[in-house]
């Protein structure tokens, strides 16, 4: 790793990268690749697609870098590209269905990454998580985007608004409506889990 690049701010790295310095851009990518990946994963629920789209996000950003005027932070800009690519992907492809596929992809990952699954859960809690995933997935895209960025990625309303290209107030209302919808769908399962545990 180029020590000098690590010391530079995002703004400086962008300026250096604009001149064609690949090392500068890969340092920027290194800083945000995990967040970009997990943001996209929140939409695709599929490791292969998330990996591809994350790579595509950075490739797209690199090619478009000359036009990036740094009016927003690099972080916001790259997130916006990632979210747009993920949304376009969802619109194009039929959704990968089911947690079975997720498990399959994850078990393939285990071989290559020596990672481990989260510990066994109570079966009813597991069902609740299945339901929650399906419920989030069934939300209309504007609500799903908001939930993914704010609740799952931990962005503020302001940050999410910049990424999604809408007002902070809109993000705030989308979060409220999304939670109402999720709560309505999941109410029966809360009662079951409460009774069992």
């Amino acid at each position, binding site marked *: 790793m180029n020590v000098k690049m690590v010391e530079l701010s995002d703004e400086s790295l962008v300026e250096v990268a604009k001149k064609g310095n690949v090392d500068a851009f890969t340092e920027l990518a290194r800083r945000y690749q995990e967040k970009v990946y997990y943001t996209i994963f929140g939409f695709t629920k599929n490791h292969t697609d998330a990996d591809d789209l994350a790579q595509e996000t950075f490739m797209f950003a690199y090619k478009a870098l000359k036009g990036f005027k740094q009016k927003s932070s690099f972080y916001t800009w790259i997130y916006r590209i990632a979210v747009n690519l993920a949304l376009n992907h969802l619109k194009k492809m039929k959704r990968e269905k089911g947690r079975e596929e997720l498990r399959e992809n994850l078990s393939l990952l285990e071989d290559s990454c020596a990672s481990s699954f989260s510990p066994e859960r109570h079966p009813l809690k597991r069902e609740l998580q299945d339901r929650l995933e399906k419920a989030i997935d069934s*939300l209309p895209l*504007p609500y799903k985007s908001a939930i993914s960025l704010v609740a799952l990625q931990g962005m503020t309303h302001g940050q999410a608004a910049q990424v999604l290209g809408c007002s902070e107030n809109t993000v705030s209302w989308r979060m409220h409506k999304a939670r*109402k*919808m999720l*709560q309505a769908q999941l109410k029966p399962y809360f009662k079951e889990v409460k009774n069992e545990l």
Partner: protein
Amino acid sequence: MTRLALGLLSLSILFLLASPVRALQNRERVRENISTLRLLRMTQALDLTEEQTAKVYPVYNRIEKDKIEIQRRIGSELDELRTLLNDEASKGAEIETRIKNLMELRNALKAKDDEFEKFLESNLTLVQRAKYVLFSIDFYRGLGEKLNRARMIRERAKRDF
């Protein structure tokens, strides 16, 4: 050439105009936004309960996704038709097949709307179903009004420019 074939020819040419991927994506984006607005307004107009919302939303979204897919297939069929019409060697039977496919897809699109309305029938009260009828008139008229307003905005922008 029949009126229908002329009409389809026009449609195919219109799709030629829209064939750049970006234009198609724009069209889909507008459709999705209209779909979102319709769902939101419907929820409010019909005064859906939370339980009804939890049932209706996933079905509505699934049906809208299916319709987008059908629209895409219509787009492909129109592209094929355009290619056939441009090719002097193409046969009448092939063109007729494409026209038949297009009509079937168009019926499939309408069938999706029927599917949703049938679903509503079994999940709404009588009063809500009546409200749905009234809501539909108002919503579609509202779309027309928005389009007129957008036209006025464009005209004003051109004048001011």
